[in-house]
């Protein structure tokens, strides 16, 4: 993984995120924006907690939604249990209950999962998650069957610091508060001996064991703490949506936190935050435009795994290092040259996929830039396919020069550093 960035830069990123998170909703008084931001903040905590396993300890989990979902269920049960005595102050503290549920789940399940790392961990985490999900219909009183459980965060009277948690913006501030507290604690953890040893266990378990660390214990502790934060994220989502269903602990949720974290970048602390923001935005914006968003997302994910395994964060930090070294000027023409065929290839692919979806939905015609396209004729399909192929051919043509320039710049960058 990459070296940790220097402290002043970390402070800068924290401050930037804080300013963006606080200024955006005040600037645009839009309910949609606030609800998207709340979701991003929740997912960011969830993804950060996931990265404690994948990025910091090297544990690939396919069942992280278990802790998230249990946290959410604990919170909604607490909220409903409190009923009318749920004062706004108590409601504000409820995510801690979710965190406690995640922690306890981690304490129990971690005993079984963290014995081994690698594929065994991945498989046992998958098995336990599937087991949990498959058991949920047997306990309708706990998981509420298909409908799940609904709650009311305004059941109690009064207010806390003038907040009643009624309007979405107020719950956003609450989510943001807990998100920053959790992120701060998770960041602090990376600086502790445990956080450092977790990195050692990730990179070379044999050696860590040889020095005298109990690798299993380290994995266990990281998993328990990660369960705590995932539980807090689940609790926040329970308060935010006021409904919790079993979908929150299924394989799909586990998969999407993995995708968010990985596309964001597992080598940087803020990578998962970036991934959570990016994918939540994609989900709401692209998902509103087209039914095919999951397909686009799958293709995007494949592209990231194949070409940028460090995620978006590493792409950005590479580029910023190049800009700082003044090397970006040599690369810019190559980027510009590659942009046109890349855009063409994307256009062709999107055209094909969208036409296919329109056909699947039973439409005979689709409109593109004001003109109507008849889907049952061959021409639009051939056109889109040739645009795609042309784009790919163009990319192949320019990619050699770009990769040469890229490697040259990279070696200059590394040579430039003493």
């Amino acid at each position: 993984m990459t070296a940790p960035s220097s402290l002043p830069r970390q402070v800068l990123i924290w401050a930037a995120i804080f300013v963006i998170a606080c200024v955006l909703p005040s600037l645009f008084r839009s309910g949609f924006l606030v609800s998207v931001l709340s979701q991003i903040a929740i997912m960011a905590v969830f993804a950060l907690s996931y990265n404690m396993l994948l990025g910091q300890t090297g544990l690939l989990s396919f069942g992280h939604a278990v802790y998230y979902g249990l946290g959410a269920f604990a919170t909604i049960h607490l909220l409903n249990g409190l009923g009318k005595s749920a004062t706004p102050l108590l409601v504000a503290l409820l995510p801690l209950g979710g965190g406690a549920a995640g922690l306890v789940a981690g304490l129990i399940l971690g005993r079984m999962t963290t014995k081994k790392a690698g594929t065994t961990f991945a498989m046992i985490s998958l098995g336990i998650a599937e087991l949990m999900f498959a058991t949920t219909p047997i306990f309708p009183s706990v998981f509420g069957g298909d409908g799940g459980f609904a709650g009311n965060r305004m059941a109690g009277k009064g207010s806390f610091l003038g907040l009643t948690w009624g309007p979405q913006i107020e719950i956003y501030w609450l989510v943001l508060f807990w998100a920053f507290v959790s992120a701060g604690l998770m960041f602090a953890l990376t600086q502790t001996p445990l956080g450092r040893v977790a990195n050692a266990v990730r990179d070379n378990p044999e050696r860590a064991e040889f020095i005298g660390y109990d690798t299993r214990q380290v994995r266990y502790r990281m998993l328990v703490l990660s369960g705590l934060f995932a539980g807090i994220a689940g609790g926040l989502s329970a308060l935010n949506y006021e409904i919790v269903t079993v979908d929150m602990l299924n394989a799909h949720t586990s998969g999407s936190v993995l995708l968010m974290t990985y596309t964001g970048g597992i080598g940087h602390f803020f990578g998962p935050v970036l991934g959570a923001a990016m994918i939540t935005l994609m989900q709401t914006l692209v998902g509103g435009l087209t039914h095919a968003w999951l397909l686009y997302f799958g293709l995007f994910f494949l592209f990231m795994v194949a070409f940028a395994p460090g995620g978006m964060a590493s792409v950005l930090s590479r580029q910023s290092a190049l800009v700082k070294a003044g090397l970006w000027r040599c690369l810019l023409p190559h980027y510009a040259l590659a942009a046109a065929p890349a855009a063409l290839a994307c256009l062709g692919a999107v055209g094909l996929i969208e036409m296919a979806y329109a056909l699947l939905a039973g439409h005979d015609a689709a409109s593109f830039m004001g003109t109507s396209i008849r889907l049952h004729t061959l021409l639009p399909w051939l056109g889109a396919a040739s645009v795609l192929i042309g784009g790919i051919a163009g990319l192949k043509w320019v990619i050699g020069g770009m990769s040469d320039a890229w490697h040259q710049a990279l070696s200059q960058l590394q040579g430039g550093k003493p």
Partner: protein
Amino acid sequence: MDFVVITLLNSVAYGLLLFMLSSGLTLIFSMMGVLNFAHASFYMLGAYFAYQISTWSGFWLGLLLAPLLVGGVGMLVEWHGLRHVRRFGHVAELLFTFGLAIVFEELVPLIWGKASVPYAVPAQLEGALFSLHGAAFPIYKGFMMAMSLGMLAALYGVLTRTRIGLIIQASLTKPDMVEALGHNVPRITMLLFGGGTALAGLAGVIGGNAFVTEPSMAASVGFIVFVIVVVGGLGSLGGAFLASLLIGALQTFSVTLDVTLQQVLTLIGLSLPADTNLARVSLVQLGPVLPYLLMVAILILRPRGLMGVRES
């Protein structure tokens, strides 16, 4: 008694089908050290390809061509995708197959629609093979068993009796040495990936019409196949065989037996608090849970699986 015999035969037919899937997954895992998350997607592709071919020229051509097509797709995936991701390590490879599974699951409904397709058993294979006091055993189940056993024999023959099989076996354990002897190991990997996915495709061809050919068929069988290779022991073909039959029996019997958990526990002298939900839970409800329960138990008690050699 007849009921038990018929259910046993059904479970063996299902178990052998599962083995066709898990054997390919096991071979790919042994060669590349990576579990192929998209393996069940190739099973689905097999069923859909066979359906498509069967609408043009009948079932038998589909039986022949669809697995070859699926194997071709598999080889392309290895050649243009996985091979390049390998330098980033096992996690990246695994995630690549994970992404592939998502893409396949979205692409298939895009081409064939979201509903199930009418991929049917051919007329020659319809009807009952024999019946025991009214309980019938369909011909198609017998055909499935014969196909699976034939494949199993062919696989065994190729791996142990032919030159390419010996080279494959050698490259599973000592790829560097095999390469040094002048064999093209990347090509062998590609062929093996193609072979493994073709087996999955064949399972799709004969399983798609026995069950339902729909976009969610990959997800429904995918996790079960993982359970099998983990329970059997990662990389062990014999273990995968044993676990396939075991899981096949577990799933078939739990669906057909109308018994509650309470009744099962009474057999071993235990009892549950009478009027709780738990006492009313039936074995049918527990059915989907059992494979995972078995997997978690195996991983805790015997992490290398039933017949596995290595631990991770």
